[in-house]
């Protein structure tokens, strides 16, 4: 019986250890989108309709293109890292076309779910054991909402939207974003963040029933200053 006990404990320990090693990511993770098959390591997640994500690769460079026509789907990459140790995330994005204003008349001003479309979104997801406690930082490029605004998603209180770029000033130009997700999380939620578990990208137009186009490139995840 004691042998069985020891074996059981050892088995659980090995499984947990295996989980930690298998899921620990090599950091920093860099996505240059230079190869045609760069999207193979990403998972496609469809919400409403399918956005066309494709890698536009040339001989020397490349980027990720997203064209959304009345659709909302994203690409998703699982990566575990500690935002306290490696808090930086950076990427380049370029908006070519913004979603149009909602054709749906809002009943109440606060019901802004109908206009919850952004030309470009970059997510950092902080999963918890209980799925409903999972928190998300969502960096967006919006047409109107002022830069620096932090909103709570109309879909769920645990999704905080941080407007990084606003308006058409930089349209059709690559803009580099570098964020300290540890600080952003604390500012948005007023809490210490747990481990980050995934990143995602989405260009969506389902709520406004319009079209949008944006490009993404040079995504770098989980590093600190001087280690990029």
């Amino acid at each position, binding site marked *: 019986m004691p042998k069985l006990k020891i074996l059981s404990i050892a088995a659980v320990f090995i499984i947990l250890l295996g989980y930690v090693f298998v899921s620990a990511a090599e950091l920093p993770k860099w996505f240059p989108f230079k190869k045609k098959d760069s999207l193979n390591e990403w998972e496609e*997640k469809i*919400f409403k309709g399918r956005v066309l994500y494709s890698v536009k690769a040339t001989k020397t460079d490349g980027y990720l293109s997203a064209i959304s026509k009345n659709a*909302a*789907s994203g690409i*998703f990459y699982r990566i575990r890292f500690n935002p306290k140790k490696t808090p930086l995330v950076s990427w380049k994005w370029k908006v070519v076309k913004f979603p149009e204003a909602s054709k749906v008349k809002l009943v109440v001003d606060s019901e802004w779910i109908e206009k919850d479309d952004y030309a470009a979104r970059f997510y950092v*997801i902080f999963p918890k054991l209980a*799925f409903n406690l999972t928190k998300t930082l969502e960096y967006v490029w919006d047409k109107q909402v002022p830069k620096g605004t932090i909103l709570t998603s109309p879909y769920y209180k645990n*999704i905080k939207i941080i407007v990084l770029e606003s308006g058409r000033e930089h349209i059709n130009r690559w803009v580099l974003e570098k964020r300290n997700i540890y600080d952003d999380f604390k500012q948005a939620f007023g809490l210490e963040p747990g481990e980050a578990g*995934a990143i995602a990208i*989405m260009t969506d137009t389902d709520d406004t029933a319009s079209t949008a186009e944006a490009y993404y490139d040079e995504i770098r995840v989980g590093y600190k200053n001087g280690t990029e």
Partner: protein
Amino acid sequence: MEQNRRKNKIIQGPIQKKLLLLVFFAAVIPAGIITVCLYYLIFNLLAWQIGIPEAVAYNLIPVAQKVNLIIMITIPIALIIIWVIALELSHRIAGPIYRLEKDLDAIIAGTKKGPIQLRKNDLLKELADKINKAIR
């Protein structure tokens, strides 16, 4: 047999109480652990599968709220059912113990001579038969 019918479901206080709680918690604790594990396992797997946080909130949270409501309604019913079953089971063990003890007291005191009779569905019948053989 009918004359031995017990109307009171709590007869052998401390022993039955122990048995009752043992059976009750032996059913409730594993059931509770399995429910919580399955609940979070299923919803977490679904959440990871859906991926996009808005989609999780839009599709999964309402489902979870409905499931929570169903659980809130069914848990008290399930607890009552488990309690009734535990009471019945503990009664089937504590009842014969009470009868054995009472009859043996009466036999020792010389006020009873006949065999110890247990109810049809009572447990410990073999033990009663052996005692009956011994005191014959």
